């Protein structure tokens, strides 16, 4: 379990004063006792981690198996020209430690794998999906459902972005009071030839940046879970499931879509779930095969 610290020392009041005086946050003191796992330290994970660390989330885990490349830097603002070639997790920790040395960082400098996902996710209060392939997105969601963790999922490509808070509330499999999971919304993976990566399709830095910062915001809202009005200081019920759609060149740029609830036959979160912790840990679920693959020439 992550380090627990209480009460605040005077430096914390100084550093976090501007958020402590807000009615929505004040009650909770700070986020020193909270822990958040950021999976993917790229275009989404960089700004998301920056604002979580700035806000003083006590423990932040960072998962990524890649190294920093020069082509990342236009949007992955925690990395730097001098750290090209360094692992993204290590590079991010340099920047994040300099922003806020009071946060405990847990490095996971390897690609998320199905046999270790449960052990990796277990210690955290909630998870941010900042990854970039369908296979990993199903794995992240399934793991969150099995462990009962809310999931803040975002994605971006070219001038578009999407954001969902999934498995919120994170009720057990089969409990209809729980929020939908990634499989409820996308029961079948997209055909591989329709999947375009940021490498192939391009991406505007601020587009993925906005989505990443919004992930940090949704995480903070989940960590506080207090109604906006100062007069109502009891925990608020979870927001109804919704999808935020962003499109930089559309008018309006943002749309909020009311989303389905849990699917009665969902493979992950229903009573009929076929996804189990044992199947995941034993490696018998092949996410890469489930999503298929395509050679880059055939892609859209």
């Amino acid at each position, binding site marked *: 379990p992550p380090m627990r610290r209480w009460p605040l020392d005077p430096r914390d009041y100084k550093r976090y004063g501007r958020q402590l005086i807000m009615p929505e946050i004040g009650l909770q003191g700070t986020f020193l006792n909270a822990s958040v796992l950021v999976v993917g330290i790229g275009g989404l994970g960089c700004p998301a981690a920056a604002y979580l660390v700035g806000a003083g989330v006590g423990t932040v885990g960072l998962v990524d198996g890649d190294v920093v490349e020069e082509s990342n830097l236009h949007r992955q603002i925690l990395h730097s020209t001098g750290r090209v070639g360094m692992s993204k997790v290590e590079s991010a920790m340099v920047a994040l430690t300099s922003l806020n040395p009071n946060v405990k960082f847990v490095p996971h400098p390897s690609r998320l794998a199905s046999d270790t996902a449960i052990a990796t996710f277990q210690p955290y209060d909630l998870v941010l999906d900042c990854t970039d392939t369908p296979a990993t997105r199903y794995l992240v969601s399934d793991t969150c459902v099995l462990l009962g963790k809310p999931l803040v999922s975002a*994605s971006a490509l070219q001038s578009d972005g999407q954001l969902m808070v999934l498995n919120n509330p994170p009720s057990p499999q089969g409990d209809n009071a729980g929020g939908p999971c990634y499989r409820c919304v*996308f029961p079948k993976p*997209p055909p591989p030839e329709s999947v375009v990566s940021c490498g192939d399709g391009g991406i505007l830095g601020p587009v993925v940046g906005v989505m990443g910062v919004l992930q940090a915001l949704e995480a903070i809202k989940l960590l506080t879970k207090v109604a906006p009005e100062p007069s109502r200081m009891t925990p608020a019920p979870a927001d109804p499931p919704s999808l935020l*759609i962003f499109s930089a060149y*559309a008018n309006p740029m943002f749309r909020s879509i009311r989303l389905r609830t849990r699917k009665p036959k969902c493979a992950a979160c229903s009573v009929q779930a076929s996804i189990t912790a044992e199947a995941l840990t034993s490696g018998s679920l092949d996410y890469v095969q489930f999503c298929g693959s395509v050679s880059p020439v055939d892609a859209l």
Partner: protein
Amino acid sequence: MGEKQDIKFTVEFLGGLDMLFRSSKEELSMPTKDELSGERLVLSHLIQALADDGNRIRKPGTDRKLFVQEDNTVRPGILVLINETDWELEGEEKYEIQDGDHIIFVSTLHGG
């Protein structure tokens, strides 16, 4: 059966689907009843029309498989939204299109 008026509505393509169509937003007008079946216009008729492209709003040379499956249902990874609501809450392909409706087809994104 003498009913002949058209329904006007807006269709929007987001999340990269705009690459398949002439523009990202189209004002469409379709007959209240399907010519062949005589049925009231529902979403499956619209999807089939977009796939067959009688309206010529798909870009030339684009592959219909990036929009629909063999059976003319939208391919996995595309969400259909009716007036800012997931179509699962509105009856999916059986939803009867209303005058002034705003229908969005959005492809899920995976990049990060």
